[in-house]
């Protein structure tokens, strides 16, 4: 057990025992070290299964939507990037801030088990990052890997170590800011010809099996009933009938979360087909920044997102699409 995890469990137990909260949302041990899953704990006894390791990539804020419906106070452990999603949910009245105690937890980037496996390491029993390296233990021996090679994609473009909101924080070791350019992927696509882009997306989107994992994990996708499940919407489909519908689903989903997406990267993390879905959302983020000024969804829990705002001097669509204009 690492020190941070110790602290977290200790705090969770305190909160539950003191009846300060009725529920703690955290991560629960899986079968292996690398498959912890989000879980709610209601007593300190249950906390024996609590885990916080380098595989706890899941963003817990979305689980509050449902958990808030029942009475009582809830404590939630959020990594810096997860706190933005929390703010966004508060802004949209999906989560009642009064009922939630946000505990910010230390994060040095989370690991991608698929990437570790692809290094030829099987039966992983543990992994711990430190500095730029990750020490992996397995049934077949130990290995040291370069951290950047095994981080989750979303952590490679980490948006910073600032907690957008936190009632208290548990940070034992200083979190290092990493420098990265999160729009390089979008820019690379923008530089391609229309044909190339189309080929790229056709190949990517046709992999989609409509498992809805991206939607289910997305903290911005919290509709009681999704338009794609609603017969009255005119776009509902039980199963994809053709490639276009995949595109339609992903285009509409990206549009619906535009201005609300905090770029938490969960969609791409959970996609079983490894579709780079974050590249869709990031295009919107990039264009919003370019046309209407820098905007980070979830920076605060109030205010309007750029799609429900306007300026009289906004760019015309023709020039906006051509990439000619920038926000003054």
């Amino acid at each position, binding site marked *: 057990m690492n020190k941070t995890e110790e602290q977290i469990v200790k705090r969770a137990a305190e909160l539950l025992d003191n009846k300060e909260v009725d529920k703690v949302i955290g991560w629960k041990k899986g079968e292996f070290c690398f498959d912890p899953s989000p879980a709610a704990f209601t007593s300190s006894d249950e906390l024996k299964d609590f885990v916080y390791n380098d595989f706890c990539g899941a963003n817990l804020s979305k689980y509050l939507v449902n958990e808030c*419906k029942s009475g009582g106070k809830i404590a939630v452990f959020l990594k810096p990037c997860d706190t933005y999603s929390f703010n966004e949910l508060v802004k*949209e*009245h*999906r989560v009642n801030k009064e009922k939630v105690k946000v505990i910010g937890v230390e994060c040095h980037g989370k690991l991608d088990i698929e990437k570790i496996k692809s290094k030829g390491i099987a039966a992983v029993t543990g992994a711990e990052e430190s500095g730029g390296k990750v020490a992996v233990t397995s049934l077949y021996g130990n290995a040291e890997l370069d951290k950047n090679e095994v981080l989750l994609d979303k952590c490679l473009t980490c948006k910073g170590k600032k907690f957008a909101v936190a009632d208290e924080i548990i940070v034992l070791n200083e979190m290092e800011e990493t420098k990265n350019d999160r729009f390089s992927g979008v820019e690379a696509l923008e530089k391609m010809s229309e044909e190339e882009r189309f080929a790229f997306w056709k190949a990517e989107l046709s992999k989609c099996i409509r498992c809805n994992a991206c939607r289910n994990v997305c903290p911005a996708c*919290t*509709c*009681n*009933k*999704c*338009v794609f499940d*609603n017969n*009255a*919407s*005119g*776009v509902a489909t039980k199963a994809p009938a053709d490639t276009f519908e995949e595109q339609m689903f992903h285009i509409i989903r990206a549009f*619906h*979360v535009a201005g609300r997406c905090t770029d938490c990267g969960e969609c791409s993390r959970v996609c079983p087909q490894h579709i780079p879905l974050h590249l869709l959302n990031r295009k919107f983020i990039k264009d919003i920044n370019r046309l209407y000024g820098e905007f980070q969804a979830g920076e605060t829990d109030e205010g*309007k997102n750029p*799609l*429900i705002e306007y300026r009289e001097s906004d760019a015309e669509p023709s020039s906006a699409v051509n990439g000619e204009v920038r926000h003054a």
Partner: protein
Amino acid sequence: MQRIGVFICWCGSNIAATVDVERVAEEIKREPGVVFSANYQYMCSENGQQLLKNAIKEYRLTGVVVGSCSPRMHEATFRKAAESAGLNPYMVEIANIREHCSWIHKDREEATKKALVLVRTAIAKVNLNAPLTAGESPVTKRALVIGGGIAGIQAALDIAEAGFAVDIVEKNPTIGGRMAQLDKTFPTLDCSACILTPKMVDCAQSDKIDILTYSEVEDVKGFVGNFKVKIRRKARYVDETKCTGCKLCMENCPSKKGLNEFNMNLNTRPAIYIPFAQAIPNVAVIDPEQCIKLKTGKCGLCQMKCTVGAIDYTMQDKFIERDYGAIVVATGFRPINIDHFNEYGYSENKDVITSLELERLMNAAGPTDGVLLRPSDGKHPKVITFVQCVGSRDLTDCGKPYCSKICCMYTAKHAMLIREKYPDTEVHVFYIDVRCPGKNYDEFYRRACEQYGVDYIKGMVGKIYNENGKLMVQGSNLIENEQVTIASDLVVLATAIEPEPSVRKIATLLTASIDTNNFLTEAHPKLKPVESPTAGVYLAGVCQGPKDIPETVSQASACAAKVIGLLAKDSLKTNPCVAQSDESMCNGCSQCANVCAYGAITYVDKEFRLGGGKTETRRVAYVNPAVCQGCGACTVTCPSGAMDLKGFASKQIMSEVEEICRA
């Protein structure tokens, strides 16, 4: 499945000449759901409507599609007819096969095919239509008239006459407008002031009319029957309730060099002034740009001299908010700026003047006390040349593409009056066409030629230059086919008129549409010439298009009639095509309320029953149908699709899309 009746109108030959109406009616019979189909010469006629009504009853129609002219033209007609036959009016849809089809396509086959698609598209929509019922909203029984010229005055008087309260908001210190500046009026030559000032007095004396001069409309909220208007009452620095109009302040003001706007800047006035003798209200106003006290803090003479203590240098702009049921826009006009027409040398030569300046020079209350003296040296001009169409019908950047309409007549008036009063004066008029349609108008113009010997020269002036103190007017004489140069003492330019520029802001506030020349657009050029497309907003006078006094007065009275009709109702049927939120799907995320321009959306916590005896309280959106205007901005903002627009539901529009793309 609906039972749909389809009616294809020939519109005489307007549709039938290009669209094979019989084929359309015949082929459409095969569409699923269509139980009746017919074509008829004029669906909007009594007989056509009867055909529709009979079919509704006979075939028990649940939906109707009329293939005809634009729904903007006759949708209301057919909906009303359907209603009288017992069908919900919102079960009627129009396929626009005239404006969007027969009138723009020449090929009969092509147009017929398109008409079929358009009718099928309407059928696809009707299939998903649901009966809608209009709600009701109360009417505030008070009207607002923006602009206190003859149009605003007439409208206000007529509305007040019917017993409704009305406010006139005028940006200048007095009502009266342009007409107050005129000397005589055509074609009768009666004195403008003599016929206008009694009306101004009537306004002041009416207990129904509240005159808010030196005021501007700042903000407009609400909708027909329920406008909320914020009015800025500019600081006058004179208490309107105390000032007696004695003019002592004017006499004592040391700052006398202000240009007199009422006299077209031809003479000066003091910093504290009453615009003209018959001003309503007859109350002074201080020009803050000119007043020594307000600029430097030193002076205060007028305050000392004022016997009633009306002067208050500390006065600030005030804002008032009032509710109105209807709004009349009567913002009027101004002559265009002609400084850029180098050929006429208006800015270089004092004796080249505009017609409105001539009005002041001929007016007994004007700068020359009604004696026609030219501005440069105060001498009587012996040769006067008029130039028509200065800036009118002019496609260059300096001019206006339209005909200003009033210039031919007032030029004839000026020419005649001058010849009458100063028979030794030579009067020439350069013209392109003389346009005098109107009762006794052409006769009036002929009198100028025949009786008063005014020299009308067909041709335009190309150049005006100064030579030995004479204004040399060089132009064409197209009848003689020669170039003429007339040495004149005074040149009068019949300057084009344009809408008062402040109308742009007002149009934006009222969401009333405006054309490229800044004229407000009427709801229909022939059949709704006084209504703006925005319900409850009416147009009077030149703000809608160039017109003379009798036309302006007619339009103002027409506006008043419309306003009276509106205010006479206790409540209005509201548009049932409003947004509605499906509570079962609403997330309560507040995105929709953020884009609503009318504040129609509020949120409530509502308990919902879940399975197994459980309940859940959720925040859901509620749309106030009386306030919602039905734009649909919220529907697109709503990610869950809970918000939809009645009459333009997502499914309906998508079915239209599908039908169009299917073809």
